[in-house]
């Protein structure tokens, strides 16, 4: 079966002079699902939190006002923390794993790109469990949305991107299938899509 390996590189998360960088790799191993322990998740989630804490820092080490990226919200860190905390409280599952991978991949792509983060207002982010058990991750922008509907059955998961249309009263909708192997490309698509709002 497939499981996930976490690798870190690019310096310490507590070092304010560097943008945190974590790399999540998909590897084909024969490890059993028992190996997907709480410990693994804690490590992963801490890595994401550290990434979010890096938000307010520039490469020259000066603190930067997080509100720069978020005219609406008081603190991006809090918002990301809230989504991470929500996911963290979920039982271990495919759903949880995919949600964490998506969150990390997209936020790494956003925060590691100066041009992007300075030109695109940071999104409102929410993680919600819907009544049918679907985990919904939403990035809401003024002119569009990125929604991930994550089922525990990966083959029923999908991403829905919406963009305001000048020609119609409803948005243009793009849909993508989600599975463990499409997360990298999906995160790339989401980031490219959101960059169109800049």
């Amino acid at each position, binding site marked *: 079966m497939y499981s996930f390996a976490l690798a870190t590189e690019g310096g310490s998360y507590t070092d304010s002079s560097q943008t945190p960088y974590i790399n999540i790799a998909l590897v084909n191993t024969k490890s059993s699902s028992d190996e997907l322990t709480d410990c693994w998740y804690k490590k992963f989630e801490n890595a994401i939190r550290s990434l979010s804490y890096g938000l307010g820092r520039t490469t020259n080490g000066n603190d930067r006002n997080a509100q720069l990226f978020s005219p*609406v*919200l008081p603190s991006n860190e809090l*918002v990301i923390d*809230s989504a991470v905390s929500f996911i963290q409280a979920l039982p271990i599952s495919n759903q949880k794993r995919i949600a964490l991978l998506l969150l990390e991949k997209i936020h790494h792509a956003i925060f590691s790109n100066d041009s992007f983060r300075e030109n695109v207002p940071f999104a*409102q*982010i*929410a993680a*919600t*469990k*819907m*009544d*049918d058990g*679907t985990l*919904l991750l*939403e990035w*809401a922008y003024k002119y569009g*949305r990125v*929604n991930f*509907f994550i*089922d525990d059955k990966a083959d*029923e998961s*999908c991403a*829905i991107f*919406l963009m*305001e249309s000048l020609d*119609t*009263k*409803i*948005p243009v*909708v793009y*849909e993508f299938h989600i599975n463990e192997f499409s997360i990298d490309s999906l995160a790339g698509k989401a980031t490219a899509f959101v960059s169109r709002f800049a």
Partner: protein
Amino acid sequence: MGYPIEGIYRGISSSDSFLPGGEVSAAAFQFKINCNRLDNLEECSINWADDERSLVNIAKQKSNKAGDLVKQFKFGACSICLDRLDELKNKYPTIFSYERAPVYESVDGNEQNPYHGNLLINLSSSDIPKVTKRHISSVLAFITEKVMIREDLDSLIAAL
């Protein structure tokens, strides 16, 4: 009876239905099976915005929580105008529709609700029903116009 150009109000009973900055989440438009229906359509309950009493009706609605009557829409309401709903209907002609479904009985201390209706989806005509449902929920959340928080609804009641 036709449908008002002002469209619909959707009451918000869960904090999950709002994003942190106050935008409406796709989770606010979840469609559910109603066992009393014979047509297998899934419903999302709304009030038609026929007049100002429609929103007051939402503001005053209560639900029974373990014997206590509490405000049903604790987090507010949002609205979508009819032309947007119609455009969505045109996009998914065999899947998305709406109806009036007035409530004539007083239940749990609630008044009759002549404004009540439903947004409907017919998933039997979709090849990929779950994805289609998510499309529609996502679009509905995106096209919401006014958002009224609970305090706004309480002000309406206070002004009566």
